[in-house]
């Protein structure tokens, strides 16, 4: 029986790796997910044969309840809420792992080997940390917790002490397990999750979400070590590796190190920089245009590159943007989209929103493949983005975002920026792009502005015809 269980787990692990492998192409990605689904089914069937399981009714009830909630969430969560959903699911993952750890301690705590006890310690610490950290991230994305960095004196030192204390307690558990030490590890994990994520600002959310993904993975791997279960170790490693890799890509795209993101509390330091070039004269010097002005610029264009940012997600303007692109294309204009890797609140955020609006993915270009094209483009249309198009990242060594790869929209013949206000982006950095003579600022809700603009363009087309 045990051999069958192990073989099922081996099959599941193989299918997970093959499934993720198939996600390297859009054409094969769905099949990959189906392979992973079969893998999960094998793992669940294998577990039902596990010798330690003696009663099934609670398992069945819980699976039915979970499947019901999961189905509802899977079918009805809108695409703009995807970062929130990902944060929430990390929280569920962390919760499950932490609870399994506690139950493991209750069942085997007295006679656990050193290995098992160490693994359970890490499992509980990382699980609890992922749970509360993800809830705070969710709260920040939802606006229930302030999105700006929340800091207090010596918060980094405090976190470090808490982590060291947790490690010491885990060591003490291995030597002589006491319930007090065990629950202290659980409590420290819960606390560190909160104090680690609260000081991190909204713009750094893509990296934080990736890191929480990595922690969730490591916690699952720790569970695997505790239970001597390879499929858990493998899945945890895949999940952890993926989170770490994506997080590194995101930090690279922001020209920040992990250390800066986790311990830097940006926004507080960058916030000070904002006051140097105060916002008031900016508003007077900028070239503020109306919808009709923007329509006139676009009417003369032969090529347009659209640059979406988090503002597009906030005002849910993706369908309006697609219609604008459609109207331009109908008039013979070449339209492409430039997607910055950290535009939005998680990796690939803009791609998903535009896909939801049925924008064909061949029109979406990433930073490296389109940045040289701006110079040969008539109009760059920026929708709710600021930091990812800030020329200061290339020209001003004093800027907090200096060195971050940005989209060179200012090289286009002219630039139209749709933005709610002149307020700086989430990194709190002034944007000189908005003051350039070749930049037209259209202020207001992006969705409303773009709908009106599309309307204006279509009317002109009809008149011309």
């Amino acid at each position, binding site marked *: 029986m045990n051999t069958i269980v192990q073989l099922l787990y081996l099959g599941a692990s193989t299918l997970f790796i093959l499934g993720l492998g198939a996600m390297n192409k859009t054409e094969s990605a769905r099949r990959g997910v189906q392979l992973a689904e079969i893998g*999960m089914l094998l793992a669940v069937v294998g577990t039902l044969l596990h010798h330690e399981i003696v009663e099934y009714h609670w398992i069945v009830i819980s699976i039915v309840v979970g499947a019901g909630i999961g189905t509802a969430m899977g079918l009805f969560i809108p695409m703009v809420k995807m970062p929130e959903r990902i944060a929430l699911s990390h929280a569920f993952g962390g919760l499950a792992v932490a609870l399994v750890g506690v139950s493991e301690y209750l069942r085997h705590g007295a006679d656990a080997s050193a290995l098992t006890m160490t693994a359970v310690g890490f499992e509980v610490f990382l699980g609890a940390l992922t749970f509360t950290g993800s809830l705070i991230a969710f709260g920040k994305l939802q606006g229930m917790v302030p999105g700006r960095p929340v800091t207090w004196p010596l918060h980094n030192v405090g976190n470090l002490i808490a982590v060291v204390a947790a490690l010491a307690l885990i060591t003490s558990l291995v030597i002589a397990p006491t319930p007090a030490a065990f629950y202290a590890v659980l409590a420290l994990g819960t606390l560190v999750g909160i104090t680690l994520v609260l000081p991190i600002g909204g713009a750094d959310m893509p990296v934080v979400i990736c890191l929480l993904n990595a922690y969730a993975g490591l916690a*699952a791997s720790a569970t695997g070590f505790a239970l001597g279960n390879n499929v*858990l170790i493998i899945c945890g490693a895949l999940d952890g590796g993926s989170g770490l890799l994506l997080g590194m890509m995101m930090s690279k795209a922001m020209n920040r190190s992990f250390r800066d993101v986790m311990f830097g509390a940006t926004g507080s330091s960058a916030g000070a920089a904002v006051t140097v070039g105060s916002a008031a004269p900016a508003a007077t010097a900028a070239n503020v245009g109306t919808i009709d002005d923007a329509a006139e610029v676009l009417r003369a264009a032969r090529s347009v590159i659209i640059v979406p940012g988090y503002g597009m997600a906030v005002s849910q303007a993706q369908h309006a943007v697609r219609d604008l692109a459609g109207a331009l294309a109908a008039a013979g204009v070449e339209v492409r989209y430039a997607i910055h890797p950290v535009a939005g609140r998680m990796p690939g955020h803009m*791609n998903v929103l535009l896909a939801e609006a049925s924008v064909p993915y061949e029109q979406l270009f990433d930073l490296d493949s389109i940045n040289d094209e701006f110079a040969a483009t008539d109009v760059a249309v920026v929708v709710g983005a600021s930091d990812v198009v800030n020329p200061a990242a290339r020209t001003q060594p004093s800027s907090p975002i200096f060195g971050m790869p940005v989209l060179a929209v200012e090289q286009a013949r002219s630039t139209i920026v749709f933005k709610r206000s002149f307020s700086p982006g989430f990194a709190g950095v002034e944007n000189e792009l908005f003051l350039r003579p070749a930049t037209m600022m259209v202020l207001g809700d992006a969705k409303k502005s773009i709908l009106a603009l599309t309307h204006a363009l279509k009317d002109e087309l009809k008149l011309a015809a």
Partner: protein
Amino acid sequence: MSVTLIMGLYVFVLAVFVGWQVISKVPHLLHTPLMSATNAISGISLVGSMVAAGSGHDVTTTLLGSIAVTAATINVVGGFLITDRMLRMFRKR
């Protein structure tokens, strides 16, 4: 160090390498579906949760295990459904 630990570490390290190779080939375009898919896969903690919920040890472990099974199942079912929903939207012109 025990043999179990060494074998576990082997599996872990090799899986990290394989995962790294596989995931670095996923294009930027699909990074959100990728996160969502790895999320669903990490619902594998369902395996540990089921053992906890079904071990019949005592009320507390059964309760904790059942909550864990529910949370993990939400991730598995919700994660796979939403990944597929996203991937269906990615289309050519």
